[in-house]
């Protein structure tokens, strides 16, 4: 079990935050392009599932798996998007992403008047707290 990386996007598609932990393959493009591609992927998946679904949703898109990683997705009603890639044997991460939002993002960014909300996050406190939280998760074990 391991966690690879985390993206946070705002509702306009700006990448507010990115961090990687055990990522072994880079995408072969600049980070900026990668963020755009990731946002486009999520945006298209949302539109795809809303049209192909035979039924109505509550939460919408939750996660997808390929043969070697799993992408977890959580979106707040205000359009903030949390995207976390993990290995396949990790269970649902919804609560963890929700916690990232409610306890870490809201506490350290929204309640900090010096942090602009629509710019990439520069707060060191946020970065260290988030890093410590992710490293403390049971799903975060680098050995194997």
């Amino acid at each position, binding site marked *: 079990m391991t966690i*690879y*990386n985390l993206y946070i996007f705002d509702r306009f598609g700006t990448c507010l935050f990115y961090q*990687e932990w*055990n*990522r*072994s*393959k880079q*995408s072969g493009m600049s980070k900026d392009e*990668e963020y755009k*591609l*990731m946002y*486009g*992927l999520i945006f*298209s*998946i949302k539109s*795809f*599932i*809303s*049209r*192909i*679904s*035979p*039924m*109505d*949703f*509550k*939460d*919408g*898109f*939750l*996660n*997808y*798996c*390929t*043969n*070697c*990683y799993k*992408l977890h997705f959580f979106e707040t009603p205000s359009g903030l998007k949390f995207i976390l*890639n993990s290995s396949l044997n990790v269970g649902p991460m919804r609560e963890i992403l929700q916690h990232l939002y409610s306890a870490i993002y809201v506490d350290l960014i929204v309640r900090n008047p010096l942090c602009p909300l629509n710019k990439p996050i520069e707060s060191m406190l946020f970065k260290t707290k988030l890093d410590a939280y992710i490293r403390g998760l049971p799903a975060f074990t680098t050995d194997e």
Partner: protein
Amino acid sequence: MTVYSVYIINRAGGLIYQLDHANPKTEVEKTFSYPLELTLKIMDERVVVAFGQRDGIHVGHTVLGVNGEQVKGRQLEDGREVLEVIANQENYPIAIRFGRPKLSTNERIMLASMFHSLYAIGSQLSPEQRSSGIQLLETDAFKLYCYQTLSGIKLIVLSDPRQGSMEGLLKKIYELYADYALKNPFYSIDMPVRCELFDLNLQATLDAAERSTFYAPGS
């Protein structure tokens, strides 16, 4: 076991086969009195609920019928505009039938090619070496399973979210495709599958999968 639909996509992202197996009912009919509580708008030549979710009518539902009359696109069968009929106070009380829009063939082709590229991007953005594309996509309304064969054909099954693994079923569908579509001398590769034997056998397989189950829908 509920399988909602099956899609087969060729190497270039073209839709070559599509079948709707089970169709959950989402239609709601309700009688309204004059000022309509819902906000409707025109989207893609359809009258869509934009705001005001209630009584099983959801945002994104389209108007399917007015007073028992079918709606075609944004017009009634007799050619009157739906929005004008609904805006006119003399027509009230009015019974409107709402439901999820039925996908047209064109939209299905579009969605198939959209998935084709999502699949490729999913593998490109992988944090690990040698990732495939999206094999399982989960939402709270359905699960989408995708199996890509070595020759690049994608088999896609939409199923109930509580459903366990579909790998066996996907392999079985591939077997049927190889047996009945590819061995058909009148079938040219990468073209839409129009083959009665394939239809019949696929239907039988889905029905059999439905019966061999741990739970029945709704239980």
